[in-house]
């Protein structure tokens, strides 16, 4: 493994493409990086939520007197005395507004729903006060599990896509097929468990609001909070320089964070509210469970004649977020007939929301499993079967791909893994300890999205440079990668730039989500920096006193703090010289990014291939993923070290999806019974013995001006399916319910 990237992606003097270590790394490992909950403004109080024990019903009594009389308790916020809001928390304004539980009434809609907030001088007093509230309930029977309610056809899935899509004639394709299979896969509810739980430190100053709060989207959070409190977005200042993980859970301001702000309003003092780990299993979104049935038909030549992908999933009783599992089938395999359908049931849970690769992760497991089953039915190697059904154009839309190096991913991944030594039949390999060994493959895919963002760049006559954007580093490395883009475009060393992100008083950096943040924020930064350079170039090339006079805007490049004449590198001058002579203190550039017209004409996706090795104890069923090799093509790579880290993280999420992670709900009460990190399993280091991520070269002239596709989510896709397929190859048993646990293999 190396941190080198293909030579054609490194340019002379470039910052882009360099494997820089995280610029915030030392701050983080020394504990100097201040996360939201590390802030303690003077006079700050602590708020603790009391959450519902039941999943459905009403709160009939809260012992407010007991809580209030506990030493140190300052106030108890209930539906009766909560500050008035300008908007009802159930009002919806657009596809990105989700209903919140802000003590609007006595209804309980899911377990762990906030029912009151206790504010106290100490965390301990607030915690005990919350316990003393001891709510009484009028309980109703909750709907738990996918069979507990009548399915309905959602109006939209994900963020506005149609529930049903069909191209070609699936029935005819299945009827004409030489082989058909039908397979039903089930994936569990998974809950967000970033290291940093949701937190807020809120300070009101009249109608101005100051917040330390982890957020993946500052402007959206400002807008939502402004609407709820009836104040101007510009009067809300959010600082979010570091996140202890986002993964979608901090994409929108969460109800508990708003409760912290309400608590501060109520008591007129700064308030900190931090969610406890068990409280994460309710009000902050989760990945919904799915039951997916795939029907595939192939002709004698092993080519698909039809692909039908039906998803049953769940949303809450009071809002809609429909896990779009069928989306991967729109993209991955060539088929003349394709149908995806989504149905949902309403359960007494919090509203499921975005969780790393929402739709793609769960859909990929089912699709990759079914594809593997069909390869077996055809007697074909699973990789050969995938190549035989390689999509040259996007099956659902018919559009060409803006770029697609998936063949190279398959080839490089297979070679690194040693796939050619794989016996076709299952149950053929054992290791020295007598454990069954199996190899599986899964195709990875994630759309290359673009959102909207703005950036500002300034160069002053003293030689100082600054770049500002309200972008978010949630651990993926925005502090570093985005600064590399800024340095590249300004022609400056990265250390020479005062680079600022993570604050809402900076230009709107959009949302760090959808694996699109580097592409979006990076494009805005590129625009702002190019604007600065263009202005400097105009000053110089139109000034007869400049050595660059007459070069024309396109005739100079920025390098090492100078503009250099492209056709004669001996002619150059510094930014400072240009500005001083022009009598300017500074130039300011603005940049903006957004989806452009090329999206009408091209399908844009990152791709990859993940190869997995597992061992299975033939007697005890114990499963271990022993080796994962992923090869991914995601356009231009800004920082290979950070990108590899993203792939590793995604692949480990794939291990988690395949073998570990599930929220277990008591079927009688709808309460999560493993709401802690001892029992809600995610992989520990020992579960991840060997990982390799190969960065496959790919140039994309269409996707955005930087040629970047996202890398944050694709690693989850493909990986889980590859592991499930490897378990089949080890044992001959096809387990279609995830996570795969040892009892299913006894």
């Amino acid at each position, binding site marked *: 493994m190396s941190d080198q990237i293909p030579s054609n992606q490194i340019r002379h003097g470039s910052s882009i493409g360099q494997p820089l270590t995280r610029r915030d790394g030392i701050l983080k490992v020394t504990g100097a990086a201040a996360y939201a909950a590390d802030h303690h403004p003077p006079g700050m109080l602590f708020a603790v939520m009391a959450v519902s024990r039941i999943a459905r019903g009403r709160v009939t009594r809260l012992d407010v007197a007991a809580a209030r009389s506990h030493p140190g308790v300052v106030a108890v916020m209930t539906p009766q005395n909560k500050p008035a809001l300008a908007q009802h928390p159930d009002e919806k304004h657009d596809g990105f507004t989700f209903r919140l539980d802000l003590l609007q009434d006595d209804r309980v809609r899911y377990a762990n729903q906030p029912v009151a907030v206790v504010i106290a001088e100490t965390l301990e007093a607030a915690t005990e006060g919350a316990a003393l509230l001891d709510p009484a309930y009028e309980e109703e029977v909750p709907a738990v599990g996918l069979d507990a309610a009548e399915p309905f056809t959602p109006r939209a899935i994900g963020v506005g896509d149609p529930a049903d899509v069909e191209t070609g004639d699936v029935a005819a394709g299945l009827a004409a097929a030489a082989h058909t299979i039908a397979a039903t896969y089930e994936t569990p509810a998974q809950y967000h468990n970033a290291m940093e739980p949701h937190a807020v430190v809120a300070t009101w100053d009249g109608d101005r609001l100051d917040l330390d709060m982890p957020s993946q989207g500052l402007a959206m959070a400002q807008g939502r909070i402004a609407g709820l409190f009836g104040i101007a977005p510009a009067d809300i200042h959010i600082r979010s320089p570091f996140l202890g993980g986002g993964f979608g859970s901090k994409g929108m301001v969460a109800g508990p964070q708003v409760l912290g702000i309400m608590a501060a309003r109520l008591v007129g003092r700064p308030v900190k509210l931090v969610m406890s780990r068990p409280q994460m299993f309710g009000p902050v979104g989760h990945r919904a469970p799915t039951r997916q049935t795939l029907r595939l038909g192939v002709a004698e030549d092993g080519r698909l004649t039809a692909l039908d992908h039906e998803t049953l999933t769940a949303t809450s009783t009071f809002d809609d977020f429909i896990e779009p599992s069928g989306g991967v089938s729109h993209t991955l395999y060539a088929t003349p007939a394709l149908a995806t359908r989504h149905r949902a049931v309403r359960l007494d849970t919090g509203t499921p929301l975005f969780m790393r690769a929402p739709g793609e992760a769960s859909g990929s497991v089912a699709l990759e499993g079914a594809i593997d089953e069909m390869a077996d039915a055809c007697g074909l190697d699973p990789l050969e079967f995938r190549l035989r059904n390689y999509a040259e154009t996007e099956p659902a839309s018919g559009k060409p791909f803006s770029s697609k190096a998936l063949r190279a991913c398959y080839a490089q991944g297979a070679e690194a893994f040693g796939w050619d030594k794989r016996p076709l039949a299952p149950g053929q390999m054992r290791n020295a300890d007598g454990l069954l060994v199996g190899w599986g493959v899964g195709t990875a895919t994630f759309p290359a999205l673009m959102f909207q963002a703005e950036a500002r760049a300034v160069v002053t006559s003293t030689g100082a440079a600054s770049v500002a954007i309200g972008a978010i580093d949630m651990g993926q490395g925005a502090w570093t990668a985005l600064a590399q883009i800024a340095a590249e475009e300004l022609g400056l060393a990265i250390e020479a730039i005062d680079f600022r992100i993570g604050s809402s008083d900076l230009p709107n950096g959009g949302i760090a989500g959808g694996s699109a943040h580097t592409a979006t924020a990076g494009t805005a930064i590129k625009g702002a920096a190019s604007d600065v350079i263009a202005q400097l170039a105009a000053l110089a090339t139109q000034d007869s006193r400049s050595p660059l006079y007459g070069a024309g805007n396109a005739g100079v490049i920025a390098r090492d703090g100078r503009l250099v004449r492209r056709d004669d590198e001996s002619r150059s001058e510094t930014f400072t010289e240009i500005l001083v002579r022009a009598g300017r203190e500074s130039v300011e550039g603005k940049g903006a990014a957004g989806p452009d017209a090329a999206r009408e004409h091209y399908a844009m996706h990152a791709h990859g291939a993940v190869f997995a090795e597992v061992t299975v104890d033939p007697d005890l069923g114990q499963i271990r993923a022993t080796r994962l090799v992923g090869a991914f093509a995601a356009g231009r790579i800004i920082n290979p070290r950070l990108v590899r880290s993203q792939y590793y993280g995604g692949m480990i999420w794939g291990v988690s999806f395949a073998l570990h992670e599930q929220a277990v709900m008591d*079927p009688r009460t709808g309460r999560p019974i493993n709401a802690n990190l*001892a029992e809600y399993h995610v992989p520990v*280091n020992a579960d991840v013995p060997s990982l390799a991520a190969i960065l496959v070269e790919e140039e994309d002239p269409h996707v955005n001006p930087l040629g970047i596709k996202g890398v944050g989510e694709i690693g989850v896709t493909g990986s889980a399916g590859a592991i499930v397929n490897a378990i089949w190859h080890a044992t001959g048993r096809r387990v279609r319910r995830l996570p795969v646990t040892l009892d299913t293999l006894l």
Partner: protein
Amino acid sequence: MIPFEYVRATDVAGAVAAGAAPGAAYLASGTNLLDLMKGGAVRPTRLVDITRLPGLAAVERREDGSLRIGALVRNSDLAHDPAFARAYPAVAEALLSGASAQLRNAATAAGNVMQRTRCPYFTDTGSACNKRRPGSGCDARGGETRLHAILGWSEACIATHPSDFCVPLVALDAEVEIAGPAGTRTVPLDSVHRLPGDAPERETVLEPGELMTALVLPPEAAAFAGHSRYLKVRDRTSYAFAVVSAAAALRCENGRIAEARLALGGVALKPWRAREAERLLAHRAPDEAAFRAAAEAALAGAKPSGDNAFKIELARRLVVRALSHAASGTPERLPALPGSVFAPAPEAAHV
């Protein structure tokens, strides 16, 4: 949390006096107790800190060949004591199978014995639990029961005891030294934990104020060193409680089993000694037929307490595996758990 009194004991007599008060609990490293207090599952009104008690952190090899493990000996220190691991390899293996490195560095020997069940209905104050609140019922019955008991459970409680350490200790006839208001006494570890019956709130035979001061391995325990294993089946490679575990120790003479010891973990509210299986193994050749017969005997009384029938067959298979591993001899080096790609060197890969 509710205010509680904190008392730092300076000698055993003082600790016992302070610990005899109603609502008192002993505090060693607190790896289990503090979590339960934060969650409200237990609410002691007095914590008696015993970490400063003199003389309880030593491992003492005694002239009669027995070994005395002070109550405050850290799990990691004991597991990594080479002489200890040589003499009682299954115990070392069990210690290293438990929790995580960080927890093992803090957790004490007696604390491991006294740890509470991981039954989620016990830790969740929103659920009924006869152990937490006697007479309130058992919400585990009919609930999520994949990891619950298959042996020795009652309608009142189907929880399991989560310790790894205790399983080989019980197999090796370890004893517990207890100091109390009425003086000291010694009790077999196998008798310390109670089966639930109709009083699951009474978890051990320790009376109020009684304090475990040491664990003692008798002289004959070391005779099994050449043929001892502890195997643990779990859903995650580290930091996971046993689905089922087994400690097997054999004393072999002339190619036959002279004496066998067998205990199971994760199956009952106490470490489960399988004495009938041991009797069946005695004087037999160490072969698969013998091991299968032992496994059948060990699980003879097992019945699912819910959706966990698989644990019975799993336990049988694990018994066979543990016995056959033990029969083939204790390995020169205890097998480390698979290391991580992130471990800097293979030697450091022990987790």
